[in-house]
Each structure stands twice: as C-alpha cells, then as structure tokens.
C-alpha cells in the first residue's frame, strides 16, 4: 500500500492571540493615560518628534499595538498602524504570550532574543524605561520584581496613577 504525503497546515493559537490582543488594548490605553499624568514618562518622550510612531508587533502577522506621539502624549492607535518609526517585534506568539501575561520582563526577553527592535536604538532604550514604569504601575510589586532590574518606587503620585489607570485610564485612555 502506498503512503500518501500531503501538506500539513498547522492550526492557529486562537486563545493566546486573543489574550495578547486584550493585553495590547489594556497596555495601549495605559500608555496613553500614563503619558498624560506621569512626569517621568512625559520627560522620556519629550525629545521624540511630534508624530513619532511606535509599533509592537507579534511576528509574523500580528497582533499589533500602535502608539503615536501627539501633543506631548502617546496616543493609542490600536491595530491601525502596520509600520512605524520604531518597531518592537515579538518573535512569535509564544514569546509575546510569555511577556504579556507577564511571565518574563522586557530585559530578559531582549537577552533571549524573544523581542527585537527595528529603528532608532536610543529611542528604544528610552521606551523600555517607559514600559517599566507602566508595568510597575499596573502590576503589584511581587510580580514587577520578577520583570524589571530595579522596581521604580511606588510614590504616592504613582499609587494614585495606578488607581486612575484601573478606574478611568484603561477604560477611556484619559
């Protein structure tokens, strides 16, 4: 009996892609909101030109999360952007899921080449610091400790920002 060889089409990781999409929305709105209130983020993005775009993309075909600097804040562009001035790639769905859930910090992810950068490396370095601020505002210290090299101090202002993000910021991006 002859053996039949046919092309194999692997499935789609629907659950993980859905989780990543949801976290991208939460993170994008958190960035939009935090960039209006957090002084350190404002300082980090102050030197970026108006209209500067940034994209987080899971390789090879998304999901995507875009941000654009407008009027000294980062505006969440959802998945509208497909190209940007600075693009941060997650190498595959598994890597993105691990980083977004958050089981792994960005420094570790860069070290393990699960994330890579296309564009200006100086701005990318500044962006990783803003990411640390947003993550440490969103998550409690026992989680953040595993994700970052140094946990930023949870000042009274930043604690207020955490409450703001969970009540208004993430819902409305304000």
């Amino acid at each position: 009996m002859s053996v039949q060889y046919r092309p194999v089409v692997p499935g789609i990781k629907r659950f993980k892609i859905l989780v990543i999409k949801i976290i991208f929305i939460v993170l994008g709105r958190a960035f939009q909101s935090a960039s209006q209130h957090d002084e350190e983020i404002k300082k980090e993005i102050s030197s970026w030109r108006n209209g500067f775009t940034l994209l987080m993309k899971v390789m090879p075909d998304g999901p995507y999360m875009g941000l654009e600097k407008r009027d000294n804040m980062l505006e969440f562009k959802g998945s509208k952007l497909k190209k940007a001035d600075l693009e941060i790639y997650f190498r595959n769905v598994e890597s993105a899921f691990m980083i977004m859930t958050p089981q792994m910090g960005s420094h570790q992810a860069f070290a393990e080449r699960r994330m890579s950068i296309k564009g200006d490396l100086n701005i990318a370095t500044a962006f990783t610091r803003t990411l640390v601020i947003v993550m440490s505002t969103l998550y409690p210290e026992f989680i953040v400790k595993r994700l970052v090299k140094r946990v930023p101090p949870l000042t009274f202002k930043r604690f207020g920002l955490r409450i703001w993000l969970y009540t208004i910021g993430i819902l409305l991006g304000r």
Partner: protein
Amino acid sequence: MLPSYYEFHNPVKIVSGNKALDNLPSEFETLGAKRPMVITDKGVSGAGLTKIFIDSFASSGMTIGAIFDDVPPDSSSEVVEKITSIFRQNKCDSLVALGGGSVIDTAKGVNILVTENSDDLLEFSGAEMLKKPMKPLVVIPTTSGTGSEVTVVAVISDVKRNLKMAFTSTHLLPDIALLDPRMTLTLPPKMTAATAMDAMSHAVEAYINLQKNPMSDAYAVAAIELIRKNVLKAVSDGNNSEVRLAMANASTMAGIAFSNSMVGVVHALGHAAGGICHIPHGVAMNIFLPFGLEYNMPKCRENIAKLLLPIAGADVYARTPEPRRAEQMIHYLIELRKALNDLCGLPINLKQAGVTEDHLPEIAQAAMNDPSLIMNPREMDVNDALVILKKAFE
C-alpha cells in the same frame, strides 16, 4: 549554570597567522569575488601596510578595483557616499577594510549602500533594517581592540543632519577576519594599550551582562587571558610578531563574545564621554572599566569573581579565598591599568584624559539612552551614572 535560553551566531571565517595576507586572493576566489575595493586611511598607507597588501596580490591574477585611503578618524556618511560612487564607477564586486574601527565601520556602510543600491544610509539606520545578503567583505584589522571584524554593528555620523547612526544586523558580519601580525606591528604603544583595554572591556562586559551564554563566556575568558599574558609585552616591544598576533586574536575573541552578549554601563558611559568630550574610545574603556564592575558587583559578584582566573592566573586564583575573588579581580585590573599608565601614559581617570568636571552631568544624561544599558545587569539611572563619573574623574 546554563541560561534558560540563548543564541550564539558567528559565521565569520578567521584567517590568522604569519603571512595570512598572502592567502587573501584564494579566499576571494572562494567567495566568488574578482575585483575587490580597498578602504583604508592615510595612517595605514603611511605605515606601508597598503603596500604589503598590494604585494600579497602579486601573481594572483586578480585586480584590485580601487584603493580609497582617506577615511577620517570618525566615519561619516559623506565619506561612505563618496566611496560608494568609486565602488560603482570601478565596477568592484567586493570590499576590503584595512584599518581600525572607523575604516571597518565605513566599509560596512559602503556595503549597505552598494548592496541596497541606495544613496541614503539613514534609511537603514537601526536594528535589523537590512534584509539582503551583502557583498563579500574581508576585514583586516590594523588595531587590536574594536573587534569590529566579527561584530554585527557599525556606527556612522551623518554630519549634515547632526546624527550618529547605529546599524545592527547579522548581514553586517564580514565574511572573513584576517589577522596578520604585520598589520599591527607599527601601532604606537599608547594606542596599543588603549585598544587592548577596549578589547578587555568587551570581554569583561560580555562575561557579566544579561545576555551572557556559555559560548560567549568561552571567548571572553580566552580573550582576557591572552590580553593579560601579552598586553604589557605588546606595549613595550611592539615589534614582537608573536605578541601582536596574540593581541589580534584576543581582540577578535572579545569581539565575538560581545557581539553575542552585548556590552553594558562601561560602554554606555564611554560612548557618552566620547561624544561630548572626544575621549578616544579605548581610553574611556580603560578609565570606566573598574568603576563599571564595582557598580555592577551587587548583581553579578560571582561572575566578576570567576574572571580573577583569566586576569590574574591560576596561582592567584587558587590562593584567593572565594569571598574575596571579585574584589581581587578589580584590584588586578587596576594594577594592569597602573602598569600601562607607567609604560605609555594611558590615562586612568577623566581628568588625565582632559575632561572637565562641569561636563559630568551632560555625560551622565547622554549615557541614559545608550542601548548598551539594556543588557547591563543593574538598572542605571542618571544619579548612578553621575556617581560613577565622579569616581572616575580623579
């Protein structure tokens, strides 16, 4: 302990040894290239190295497409564009970089433009912006320090737009790194010392930072040991071919190590100090290295301690109690700096290098956006940077 995950990549063929240069025509034949263009600088030509290069092609049946020997000390996009047009006019098909860091970066820049058929380098600035395999590139280092002959990086200034463009891509890796001791024999003592400490900083930072892996560790340790055994001889007896070849190998090994595990705060501060106060890169590395290690000690004491073996030798390592090895490693590094300072006047602090104290805050601020910080074990903020700079000042 093995990292939970790592990658290591080095496809560069190393051609090393006595009269290695004479094998270059056959290497080009293997690469399928017939008309290489040589990129070098006046210093290299003046030292007679270009002539040695041309002589190595005698009776090979190959034609050298063109020789450009006017690369400035800081590679610029204008020079890259000029060389690109010469490459095209002379129908060259491959490149030779004969020189130090600036020449090698310039050759990588030219390779980007001729491969991508473009006239604007800025389009390709950043990480992983290059998609096409490049033209064959052979690098013949005339200094032993940058490691550029085996790295994925090039830095080129755009004078018109006042930008420093960084390029990182695996496509930038040369095909061949050719190490011939004749190419470094004429390097002056102070530059020999500075470039050696640049190589030392590559190996040490590669060994302690977040992307370290067993492969990069092996190259880093071997490089440090070679530098320890040969650097003082290379500075005091520059005509010693054996020692020069050892230093060239150390530099290449350190380059392979850091190209796979990146560098850290020492380089971030060195790039910033170089940009603002124009300190030569090797001098900056020599100044900052012990202070960078002290700063990182709380996060990687064990790794620093392990480096006592290659930097001080087996006897010292064996008789030093384990809890004191990290401090002793830094001590031996400082002793090496002192010896180099005595031998050739290599500066050991920022004041000696001509930096004034009022520049320190600006250097600290500039260091904060250096991508080298991403892989550093400890998160450095601007206040930490200023503390390190003050320690390194005098």
